[in-house]
């Protein structure tokens, strides 16, 4: 009787341990993944040199700082010595997007929605579009690279992992 009791307790303990281990394993895989696109705008010198005439250029500068905080010196303002890799301009169009990035090298920031938005939301969109220019694809809703605009201004583990994988392809 006593032996069986101990065995039972052992079994329960092992089961619990297995469950906890599984939970952690699940967490590790679900909370960290890399999402990259088929294209990026980074040049052969591993820089993304930006220029533009958008009224939100200061938000782009802040966004560049957010990415550069993780990998310094990758995103730079364009100078006369280098070729621009991405050009940031404004559009005013009803289309459901606060910003759009094209493989041809253009970021469009949509004044139609952004004009009513807070600085935080505008900066989220500017940072998100720079992420596409870096080659990152859409990930989950708690990331800067989540598909829908948020107030997030800090890189998540997904954002960092995606950037690491994108960077390895430059």
């Amino acid at each position, binding site marked *: 009787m006593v032996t069986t009791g101990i065995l039972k307790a052992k079994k329960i303990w092992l089961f619990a341990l297995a469950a906890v281990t599984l939970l952690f394993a699940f967490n590790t895989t679900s909370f960290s993944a890399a999402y990259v696109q*088929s*294209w990026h705008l980074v040049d052969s010198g591993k820089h993304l040199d930006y220029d533009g005439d958008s009224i939100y250029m200061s938000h782009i500068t802040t966004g560049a700082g957010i990415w550069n905080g993780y990998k310094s010196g990758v995103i730079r303002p364009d100078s006369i010595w280098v*070729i621009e890799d991405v*050009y940031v301009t404004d559009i005013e169009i*009803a289309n*459901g997007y606060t910003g759009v990035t*094209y493989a*041809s*090298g253009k970021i469009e920031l949509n004044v139609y929605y952004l004009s009513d938005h807070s600085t935080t939301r505008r900066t989220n969109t500017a940072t998100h579009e720079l992420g596409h220019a870096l080659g990152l694809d859409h990930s989950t809703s708690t990331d800067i690279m989540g*598909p829908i605009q948020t107030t997030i201004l800090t890189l998540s583990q997904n954002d960092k992992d995606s950037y690491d994988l994108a960077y390895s392809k430059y």
Partner: protein
Amino acid sequence: MTIVVAALIVGAAFGFNFFNKDTNVKNAVSEVENVDTSKLPIFPIRGSFVYDVNNINEAVGIVDYVFVGKVVRNDGTIYKGIITMESENGPKEVGTPYTKYAIQVIDNIKGALIDTIEVLKHGGVSQDNKGNKGVFIFEDDLLPEVDKFYIFLGYAQKDGSIIISGPNSNVPLNVSDKQSNNLTKQSLSSLSVYQQYQEAFENQIISVQRERFTSKYEK
């Protein structure tokens, strides 16, 4: 002499640069004919949404028109917001492609459009003729094909035009040849996709407050 030459070189360099910045022309439009897109590589367009794209009630709520239409004609690609960028091969023009379509409106689910309209589909053949030509298209989106039927989700613009843009903005309708000759609200009601959008309209969620416009194609 040396100083003059140096000044000329510096001037030319700055002048050239200035000239390029100055040609960052906005809202210019150029057009190309209908191109066969089937053999071109696809370059996905990416953006940041202002609404929850996974919620069909929000997708219907944010647009101005939801309608069943047959694609009559593809009228080629126009390029908006053309800028000039310096590239390794010299200056290149970068515009945003919109594909022009003539559509026969068969049924209005949201809004009331006249029978024959023109729409601009956000996406199409890229303008960049220095690099690789390709097709620009959003995620979960496709370019409509002539003679096929779709449920279109459209936005009226300030200038009276209609833009079709984003994920599931033209949803294919499987209509048989026999059905296609006589599509009515009643026959459409038997299609599950149609029912889905009809119900989404009845339960639409307007999550984004915005200034709405009226297209020139309203009844």
